[in-house]
């Protein structure tokens, strides 16, 4: 059984057809990226999986059970870090657990330490840099009890170097936490570097254009980004997306 199955989702807002018959799946422990141009409907798709939006048609299954319109079944990290400004980092990180019931402070402190944020556990979000906020936001997702994590372009606001550092950090956390991750991005390189599988969306109305299995071994190192194989793979995907964009 697949961990997550998205089945033939259609979504329109007024006259705008945003998602057109989108189907894909995520296996247990898999890291899957959704790659699509800006405005193609990626965030909308997350809203549907998270139960915030009920699609015009189609279904969302988690471990075989429909979670269409049901909130609280997945753990979500929004496009902006979305930490509560009046809470300390520690209390922010515990928010996901707090909403669903049980708080585990010891675990939270350990994760904060591993993310290099120990010094900031009592600080408020405005005292942190963009990268630190994203790390805190991701820890909050990992600590939440839900087993599937959705990440919506978490690194798009960061500069190049911070982004690469964050990607490496994310991979190391994921390899340990053994959670399934569905990751949204419009950055091809990021998608290849992080994922087991990449799902390419077409421009609006978005449908699944193609699916790639990423052939690179894990654990992946930064050097991979400069190898010929990597660049060739990137080129293939780029041409795929380019073609869809022009036609």
């Amino acid at each position, binding site marked *: 059984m697949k961990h997550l199955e998205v089945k033939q989702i259609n979504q329109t807002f007024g006259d705008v057809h945003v998602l057109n018959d989108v189907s894909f799946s995520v296996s247990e422990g898999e890291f899957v990226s959704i790659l699509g141009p800006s405005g193609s409907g990626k965030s909308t798709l997350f809203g549907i999986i*998270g139960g915030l939006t009920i699609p015009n048609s189609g279904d969302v299954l988690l471990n075989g059970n429909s979670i269409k319109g049901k909130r609280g079944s997945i753990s*979500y990290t929004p496009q902006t870090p979305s930490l509560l400004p*009046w809470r300390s980092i520690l209390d922010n990180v515990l*928010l996901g657990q707090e909403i*669903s019931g049980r708080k585990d402070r010891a675990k939270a402190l350990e994760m904060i330490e591993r993310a290099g944020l120990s010094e900031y556990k009592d600080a*408020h979000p405005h005292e942190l840099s963009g990268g630190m906020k994203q790390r805190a936001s991701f820890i909050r997702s990992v600590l*939440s009890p839900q087993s599937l994590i*959705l990440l919506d372009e978490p690194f798009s606001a960061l500069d190049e170097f911070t982004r690469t550092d964050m990607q490496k950090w994310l991979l190391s956390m994921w390899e340990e936490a053994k959670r399934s991750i569905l990751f949204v991005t419009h950055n091809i390189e990021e998608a290849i570097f992080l994922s087991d599988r990449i799902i390419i969306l077409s421009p609006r109305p978005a449908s699944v254009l193609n699916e790639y299995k990423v052939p690179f071994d894990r654990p992946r190192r930064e050097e991979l980004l400069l190898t010929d194989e990597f660049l060739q793979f990137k080129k293939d995907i780029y041409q795929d997306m380019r073609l869809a964009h022009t036609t």
Partner: protein
Amino acid sequence: MMKSLVKQGWRPALVIILLFLIWELCVQLFQVPTWLLPAPTQILEVGITEWGQYSHHVWATVQLIIVGFLIGSSIGILVAIGLHLVPFLKQSTYPLLILSQNIPVIVLAPLLVVWFGFGMLPKIIVITLVCFFPIAISLLDGFRQTDRDLMHYMQMAGASRKQLFWKLEWPNAMPSLFSGLKISATYSVMGAVISEWLGASEGIGYYMTLASSSYRTDRVFVAILIIVALSLLFFIFINWLEKIVIRWRSSGEGGSSETS
């Protein structure tokens, strides 16, 4: 905070001292009669020597302000929460709420005296009415301004309506609540004095009407001074409370509510 107050405050303070000096000199120079315009030194003298005679008026007014403000702001907060949590209520009454702000509460005061007499009740109603609006409106505004991304996060995490309110909307509206409280603080002093003008047996407003009807202009000025001081003290107190409650704001955002 104290330091910056001294740093920025000395210029306006100098201007005020200068104005008082000119006032003093003019009164002395042109020998203006006391019943028309007393000199600042005369006012100060009366204020100090007669303290024993009018201090109970001050305390009566302070009590009235505090009771009125507490009741008024509690009702304001409760109404805002009610309207926010029940969209139907908000849709049907919010426009009326805004419209009713155009009615000067003062014009209702004589009516309240007719209905409720000269006791504490009509005065508290007047203060409640003037306090209530700024608080209800700014708190509702604060609830409305809740960040959309934070909202989405909380909802997807499965937060209940109660959790959404207490963990997100309420703390998010704190700065707005305090800008409402600051406006209401000064309004409540004004409301108390005006309600005392209309009919009372004690209070600084009553003392003021007595003084003016017997042409004791110096006492009128003493009353004005005390009212200004009360207003200021109350405002400073709310400001201090805000600093205690809202520690999490970065200094950049801190100034936003100061403008109101």
